[in-house]
């Protein structure tokens, strides 16, 4: 039987568990975007970063993604420290800079105390939300959930990533409607920012 602590609360567990799953059991909420409990975790959006210290190095805590980091015996996790809150703000500011029209991202940002027109933005926040250029108008945060669901649930592989880095986008092969798409709507269902919509084909 293993034991770990999250925000001062203890949890006993036997099976393999991620920090996010352990937190859920303790009813501790950690924000997520690219996570879906039915799909293999991705660890890409970085909004779920928490501070974790292992038993062997209790004074050296690291920032780890809760959705993929394994819970370990003797681990001490903090989900609300200054370090965690700053990282979360940074990530949400980056996403809001990318998708200022997304209500979902705006909501999440407000929950974290980030007001785009507010006075409490630091120099980074101010730049990202007031000065930074925008590459394209989109609500897609490249979380990859649509790609993963299409691969793992109906297994149709109708969507994938094109290109890499900042030019990356989600698209069917060769940017035409995928032949393998069966119109199940799973991609629209899992999309956290409601970017994907289902239309009637003529």
């Amino acid at each position: 039987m293993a034991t770990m602590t999250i925000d001062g609360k203890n949890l006993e567990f036997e099976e393999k568990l991620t920090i996010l799953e352990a937190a859920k059991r303790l009813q501790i909420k950690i924000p997520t975007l690219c996570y879906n409990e039915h799909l293999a975790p991705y660890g890409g959006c970085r909004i779920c970063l928490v501070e974790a210290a292992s038993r062997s190095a209790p004074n050296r805590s690291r920032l780890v993604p809760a959705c993929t980091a394994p819970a370990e015996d003797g681990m001490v996790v903090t989900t609300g420290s200054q370090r965690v809150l700053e990282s979360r703000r940074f990530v949400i500011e980056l996403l809001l800079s990318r998708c200022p029209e997304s209500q979902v991202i705006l909501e999440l940002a407000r929950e974290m105390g980030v007001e785009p027109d507010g006075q409490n933005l630091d120099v980074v926040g101010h730049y990202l939300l007031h000065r930074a250029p925008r590459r394209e108008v989109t609500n897609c945060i490249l979380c990859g959930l649509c790609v993963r669901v299409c691969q793992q649930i109906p297994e149709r592989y109708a969507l994938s990533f094109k290109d890499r880095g900042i030019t990356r986008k989600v698209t069917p092969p060769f940017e035409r409607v995928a032949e393998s798409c069966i119109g199940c709507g799973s991609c629209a269902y899992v999309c956290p920012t409601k970017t994907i919509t289902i239309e009637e084909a003529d």
Partner: protein
Amino acid sequence: MKLKPEDIRLIREKYASVSAIRSGEGTRGKNIDLLVCAGTGCVSNHSLKVKAALIAEIEKHKLQDRIKVVTTGCNGFCANGPIVVVKPEDIFYQLLKPEDIPHLVEEHFLEGRPVERLMYRPGEGKPIPKMASIPFFGKQQLIALSNRGTVDPEKIEEYIALGGYQALAKALTEMSAEQVIEEIKASGLRGRGGAGFPTGKKWEFCRNARVVEDGDSAFAKYIICNADEGDPGAFMDRSIVESDPHALLEGMLIGAYAIGATHGFIYIRAEYPLALERLTQALEQAREYGLLGERILGSDFSFDITVSKGAGAFVCGEETSLIGSLEGKLPEPRVRPPYPAQYGYMGKPTNINNVETWANVPHIIIRGAEWFSAIGTDTSKGTKVFSLVGKVNNTGLVEVPMGITMREIVFDIGGGIPGGKRFKAVQTGGPSGGCIPESLLDTPVDYESLVQAGSIMGSGGMIVMDEDNCMVEVARYFISFTQQESCGKCTPCREGTWHMLNILEDITAGRGREGDIELLEKMGRQIKETALCGLGNTAPNPVLTTIRYFRDEYEAHIRDGRCPARVCKALITYSIDPVNCTGCTACAKNCPVACISGERKQTHVIDQDRCIKCGMCYSVCNFDAVRVE
């Protein structure tokens, strides 16, 4: 023919003359080997034409019984190629052209008078005939590169003649797997790919990992050689593979034996066609001799290697990405833990090491951990290979003991800065590293000291910069590189580096604002904290270190709209000095936007409104009449 351990010794004895002549201890006067460098650098400088000319001349004078022409891999002194070294005399000839050869052969080999005109000459000084006396070579200590310039990389028998595969024989016949690991641990060898993790410990983790019996791959454990060498400006691994591929294979064989792996991969960059060719050949030769395959050297140990080519993605140098690429997936880094030692290729325990790390292994096994750990410093044992490039006289590949100072490398071995220019900085660690300024030139080169100075050892790229390089522009360049290579999986790297690039482009274009330096520092630190992999969390380093040591340059761009090094186009003007201008019209003729006017023999004038700052006029003027301010 499958070799047995004693066959290694027999082959070495059979080819003893090779070793004798190449080491310079050979019978004097009698037989001569002419070692022609055929590394990528020299070959593109037509060294193979020089080789053909040598063969033709030697046959013409009927000297072929006494004089042999041998092609070797990279000597490391790339800027001075094509190179031919005469052994056993150790006479070094450089910058050769095919038309030099008839005179060379006649004077040196028929008249016994080595040709001074073709030797190395430091600046205006006297020529230095012997290779070992040339400071570039004399101050180096070769371990990973021991055979460079000496062995013909296409002949396995020569590798064996020079002592090759002895270490493998010793490991398989006299040592247990655990003993091999202990020896590597005791040596203090640390990963040469950049992270500097203790190699022996890494092997031990993999050896002790539980073997997963399920799954769809046939082998219990894997080893991988990372030959992706993505850092621009670094060509250490390319050199090792081109010059001495068997050193890599032997190191991997010993490692596989120690770890208990039965299959290995070499992941090599597609941009290295010659290295790939030499490697493929070496693998075939090793297989023919039974040094790869079943029951090697008559032992129970079986092992073989597959070569995989990269496809142009810097992120593949990151070990979990590399594994993803080998598996045919998108090379997106994975969160660690689990580490590859426990869960790697196809979910099996996998050990990845860099080319240079593997190449050190046979030497440690033969000469012992004590010998190796006596070289270098307390925490950084052995030697390191560096590619010394950029604004330096003796550009090339050097291997030096850890602890040597940066100053010795740049000035004693590198011969200082060309054109009488002033040294400004040396960049180590590639896009993940930082700049070392003049004030820190006496920093010893070892893992910890470089980290303290704000940089990292990295894989070995050492880029020298002078007064004509703008450090803000250098920072922009590096971030632009990592930005292009970012895989796009995680938000901080994908979005964050793009923003940092935009800010730097603003600054170099004269649009920087007060507070931008602080902005870059804060954003850089945040990206380092939150990015998923090594690419993202080191991408801000070049920006942060140039701010640390060259803040004044940033401030000049932002506050004064000035680029002190006169590089950033938006902040400089080109003009013609009437004192030096002879009216030769070369600039006007070459100006792509025809913005220079003037009659023949009259001072020419640049129309500033139309000038696009391309620098063509500066480049074609032979009278030093174009000013850049």
